[in-house]
């Protein structure tokens, strides 16, 4: 092989290396930056939605049951209130997957612990070949309820 042929063969090698670098490092880096940023924001959005839902849930006890029996119960109205707040905070989708509560009764005081879970999916924008990411969040909210005389105070 003469010198001219060698030079011709060498020409374009740097370009090929750069193209490989761009394709294997830079573009995936950019894609990851976009999709990971979106995932963080979605996680924060979901965390807020679940917390807001759980707070609404725990703050809507069935007052009729309480007056009648003295028991603290989070019923259908509380669930509906939780779902309403979740919907306000996650207009783009997501699901409130669970709402449950436990009550520890002591004379004159009820300690209510509510646990709520939610999840949301994110379709990657650039890494479109990948499956949908799913983010999930579970929160626990505690509330103390005292005498009915204090209900409804602002």
């Amino acid at each position: 092989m003469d010198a001219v042929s060698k030079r011709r063969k060498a020409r374009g090698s740097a370009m090929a290396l750069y193209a490989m670098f761009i394709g294997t490092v830079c573009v995936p880096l950019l894609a990851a930056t976009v999709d990971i940023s979106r995932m963080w924001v979605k996680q924060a959005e979901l965390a807020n939605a679940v917390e807001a839902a759980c707070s609404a849930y725990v703050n809507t006890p069935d007052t009729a049951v309480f007056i009648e029996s003295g028991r603290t119960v989070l019923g259908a109205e509380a669930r509906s209130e939780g779902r309403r707040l979740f919907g306000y905070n996650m207009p783009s989708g997501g699901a409130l997957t669970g709402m449950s509560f436990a009550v520890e009764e002591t004379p004159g005081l009820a300690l209510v612990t509510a646990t709520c879970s939610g999840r949301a999916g994110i379709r990657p924008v650039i890494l479109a070949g990948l499956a949908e990411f799913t983010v999930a969040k579970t929160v626990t909210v505690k509330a103390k309820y005292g005498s009915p005389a204090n209900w409804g105070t602002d």
Partner: protein
Amino acid sequence: MLTDRRAGQMAEAAVSIPAVLLILVLALNVSRAGFAALAARNAANYGARVASVAGSNAKVYGEAAAKASLEQSGVDGGFNVDVTVSGSGPGSVVSVTVGWSTPTILAGICQAFGEGCPASVGGEATAVWRREGWTR
């Protein structure tokens, strides 16, 4: 002969390096926007949470909390906070919206080529909470 080969490599690098740099600048820009969006989201959440437990002046407390959260985040960019309270007392709903915008680094590069790029990118984050307390 050596000079000729070096010149060829230089020309190839001159074509390729700007492409690499452009992608890195894009990545930097996207992460800046991501941080601003996250700061706005956290501020809206915090503001709404504080407003929901405020007995009175929920709007004032919510706005102050959201602004404090933004200040603490240390993210540069423009933010505006809007708090609305519908109804009064427990059971009403407080909504905190934080708008964000962050300058794009690419704007200067676009101008160099005579093309216009948006000078900033932005969005908004809204958090809605129920004001705490029981209703009879």
